């Protein structure tokens, strides 16, 4: 993104003080700043992530052998649910205070703004989840060989989850009971990421070559990067219009 100043102020001496960001940086910086000021939004999905993973030993069996078997799936399912949990708030506050209207009326490309918002969301949920995942891996007795697979698959998979989830968030932003609905709309679409993500971890544990899994996760991410912002933008325009 270019960071040019589109409308040079007449008094050029002031320029340095009032640097204007491009739409991408503007949106990204704002969203990061917003969640820095409201820290609970940042921490809640992480706590949820930890809790879900704790439920499995308690609910099924604390046997290390069993947990090691299910760990790849459990960590991935927990990450998926934690992402989903944080999805509802992605556009909701913008919708409620009118900033979403201003975004849609902005002459800046909506694609970029949406991409920036999703990137901010990922940096605040997907990335921390990925960094926290090895801890869960240890708690669930995931063999050490699987850790690299776990982190890299989450790194490649969680942005896709954010992108796809944002479509659901955009479709339900005007609705009062959007939260449950998002899960209904988005979970079936998460299945491919879940399958290849957990399979990559499994593969890492058993020592299989992982290139193929990462290639597929990367391909899904690229497809998501190209297509999802279009769908999100269209969905936002429809939701705000209604």
């Amino acid at each position, binding site marked *: 993104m270019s960071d040019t100043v*589109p*409308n040079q*102020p*007449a*008094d050029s001496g*002031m*320029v340095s003080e*009032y640097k*204007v*960001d*491009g*739409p991408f*940086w*503007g*949106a990204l910086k*704002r969203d990061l*700043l*917003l969640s820095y*000021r*409201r820290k609970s939004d940042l921490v809640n999905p992480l706590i949820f992530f930890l809790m879900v993973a704790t439920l499995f030993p308690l609910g099924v069996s604390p046997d290390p052998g069993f947990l090691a078997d299910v760990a790849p799936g459990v960590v991935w399912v927990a990450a998926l649910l934690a992402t989903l949990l944080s999805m509802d708030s992605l556009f909701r*506050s913008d919708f*409620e*205070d*009118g*900033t979403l*209207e*201003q*975004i*849609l*009326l*902005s*002459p*800046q490309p909506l694609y970029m*703004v949406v991409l920036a918002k999703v990137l901010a969301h990922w940096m605040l949920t997907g990335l921390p989840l990925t960094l926290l995942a090895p801890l869960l891996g240890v708690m669930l007795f995931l063999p050490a060989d699987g850790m690299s697979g776990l982190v890299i698959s989450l790194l490649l998979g969680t942005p896709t989850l954010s992108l796809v989830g944002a479509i659901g968030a955009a479709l339900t932003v005007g609705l009062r009971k959007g939260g449950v609905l998002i899960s209904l709309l988005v979970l079936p679409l998460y299945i491919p990421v879940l399958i290849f993500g957990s399979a990559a971890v499994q593969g890492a544990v058993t020592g299989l070559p992982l290139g193929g899994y990462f290639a597929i996760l990367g391909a899904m991410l690229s497809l998501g990067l190209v297509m999802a912002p279009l769908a999100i933008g269209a969905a936002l*325009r429809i939701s*705000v*219009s*209604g």
Partner: protein
Amino acid sequence: MPTPRLKIENLFCERDDRVLFESLNFEVNAGEVLQVEGQNGSGKTTLLRILSGLSRHFEGDIYWQGESLDDCAQDYRESLLYFGHQPGVKAVLTPRENLHWYASMHPAIDLAKLDYALEKVGLSGYEDSACHTLSAGQNRRVSLARLYLSSAPLWILDEPFTAIDKRGVAEKEVLIAAHAEQGGTVILTTHHELAMGDKIRRLNLDQLAGTL
């Protein structure tokens, strides 16, 4: 006769089983202030949302400088300043941060006048306090500060004077009149009696409502 700035042809809109307006035709030219009037529920906000391009639940045509709105959406958005029911102010950000974000979204906003604008809306001294510590009126004034910063020719203002005191309203009226004088166009709704008198054209939606 030059092409009108904004031309509305055969606008039809229904909401919740009710026809808000049909066969609505009007033009707005440079230098004009148009006040949309009507009772509650007559569709003022809906009309402004349609004109701004937010709502697409209508039939009919809207032309911006002779071009259909669908064909010049980009151009139109660059020329538009919209002030909606919700002021579009983030509560956890400061007025300054909010306006900085506006500037990144809107090239027509000139940040060089930022301090001046905040002073004009009576927020000097509050530039760097989070907006949730400010009153509702002050929050709306943060958004209204855009009027002092923007070089967009078309202003669409939906109830801009809600929660604004008398002096503030008078100042905004002066600003609106000045904008019109410089060749700008303003479309607004308000419950306030405006002192601008004969400079304003009025469009009453009550007479337009009908049933199929």
